[in-house]
């Protein structure tokens, strides 16, 4: 009986460890390869799982031979602006739905909710045409505009706003706040955990966005990291310089990994509350 129990326990741990290895191995491989020199990588017919003489030359060429810094900068700019504007728009809408009384509120909110079911693929065609007609291809404006509104985040924040007791609003009024000040000085700080969650999820989404930027930019100057990766893969370094590609991939992955290490509880909590990928 005891032996059977022990065996079961060992099996479980082997299984868990195996999957952890499957998850982590690509990351290990990418870091490992990025430190191999071009010559040593190509001379390994059977790939080695360690690096004998690590080199930083791949990182140097990642920044010098292709426009990695440019992609990186574009993505940071895109992420910061999109997330910032998205937050502002979302906060205003959530506030209106949660705390203001007006005619037609329920109808408008139901409309908003039903928009959550619309797949992106259905609207992206027209948006592509719209942005093209507005001459906004290859501009940040064109990249950002359709990515600002998220009905799901409005919904999430509205729910949270509604949980704040009415008495807090009354107290703020007695303490001399206007409605506008109440929103920014009391309601938002009280709901800051949700705001942080939304921010992180949006940052991840922005950092990884690929489809829309691919449609809307064909000038390398405006590429985000995802498009940059494809560009590097197809035209950069020469097709075979895998270690340099891996260095670029490492650089691109680092910001999100750091974000994840810092906030993994918040991120997982946020995703649990209803975020699906993409």
């Amino acid at each position, binding site marked *: 009986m005891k032996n059977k129990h022990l065996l079961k326990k060992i099996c479980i741990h082997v299984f868990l460890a195996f999957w952890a290895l499957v998850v982590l191995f690509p990351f290990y491989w990418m870091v490992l390869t990025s430190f191999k020199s071009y010559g040593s990588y190509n001379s390994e017919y059977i790939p080695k799982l360690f690096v004998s003489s690590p080199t930083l030359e791949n990182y140097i060429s990642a920044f010098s031979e292709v426009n990695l810094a440019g992609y990186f900068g574009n993505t940071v700019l895109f992420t910061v602006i999109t997330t910032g504007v998205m937050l502002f728009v979302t906060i205003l809408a959530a506030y209106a739905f949660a705390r203001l009384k007006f005619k037609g509120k329920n109808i408008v909110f139901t409309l908003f909710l039903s928009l959550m079911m619309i797949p992106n693929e259905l609207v992206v065609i027209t948006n592509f045409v719209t942005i093209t007609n507005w001459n906004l291809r290859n501009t940040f404006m064109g990249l950002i505009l359709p990515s600002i509104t998220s009905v799901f985040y409005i919904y999430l924040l509205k729910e949270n706003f509604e949980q704040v*007791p009415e*008495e807090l609003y009354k*107290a703020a*009024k007695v*303490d*001399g706040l206007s409605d506008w000040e109440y929103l920014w000085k009391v309601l938002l700080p009280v709901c800051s955990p949700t705001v942080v969650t939304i921010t992180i999820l949006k940052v991840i989404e922005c950092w990884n966005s690929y489809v829309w930027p691919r449609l809307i930019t064909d000038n390398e100057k405006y590429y985000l990291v995802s498009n940059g990766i494809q560009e590097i893969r197809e035209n950069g370094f020469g097709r075979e310089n895998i270690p340099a590609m891996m260095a670029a991939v490492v650089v691109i992955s680092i910001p999100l990994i750091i974000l994840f290490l810092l906030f993994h509880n918040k991120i997982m909590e946020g995703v649990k509350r209803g975020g699906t990928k993409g």
Partner: protein
Amino acid sequence: MKIVLENLTKVFPQGKHTPAVTAVDHFNFEIPDGKLVALLGPSGCGKSTTLNMICGLETPTEGKIFFGDEDITNVPVENRDVGMVFQSYALYPHLTVKQNIMFPLENKKGKEKLGKQVIEEKAMKAAKLVQIDSLMDRKPSALSGGQQQRVAIARALVKQPKVLLLDEPLSNLDARLRLSTREEIRRIQQETGVTTVFVTHDQEEAMSISDLMVVMKDGVLQQMDKPQEIYDNPVNLFVAKFLGTPAINVLHGKIENGKLVIGKNVIFNVDLPDQNVSVGIRPEGLLVDENGPFVCSLQKIEKLGRDTSVICTHEGMQMDHMRIVVPSETKIENSDTIRFSLKPHKLYLFDESENRIALEEDA
């Protein structure tokens, strides 16, 4: 600052599933400067609505509110210069105690804007007044209910408001804390001299600390007076029933040939025409007396130390049983019946519309 309510009325309009409700119906009264006034009544009687209108959180449908001589009916809440303590305290959870207390001062704009130094001094003063100056850097969630209550009071007082409003401030505290906190509120009110309006459904709480009491029912003001005066001279059956623990005993009675009769017992002479009446007798209004006119059947005796409750029944009762409080040294024989004599000033007569019928003292 005295507060005057003139014909104050609040009607909540008809909703989809609810009829229109008159929460407050033509109130007229004056709260003198520096007094602590309790608005008392069962839930739904309009006392909180009245408080919210004084505060400015609700706009009256009709009528006016004056602070002193100034008509503030249409002044928005943020400019009314009132302090309010909410039932749930409504402390800002993301701010420390100190920041909570400083918050109202930091919101002053324009000419009234205060320097950081002044704000800190005033906050410290308010904190000392309610004795929480040692907790200044804590978040509200790290405080006990009583401490949160104090912070709420400090926050309400820090801007030296014209009027302090308290909405059921003790209802979230446990019984022991409630006693000490109400003393504390009384002390703070007397120290600051701020005109204070206090909403409660607990008559004992209201009686123990207020200068004046306003009893309300269904949006209508029933009686306003000093607490003892209302207790001794209720204007109607509702007020009589609402005040006092244990509650007043109510019996069916009638006046026949100038005599008050309860059941088969003839109690005393009254100079009134024949009619049916309700008789209210305070629990302490009966004395055990072998020769008394009021005959009850004895059910149970509860010895409570300080005094003794006699539970008994009488054929005229309007409730299940009567509770009579007698001094603990009273000797009670264990028999089926018990006789009482009555103290005339603890007995009230009400007509069929439940209004008080005045009794001549010598009757």
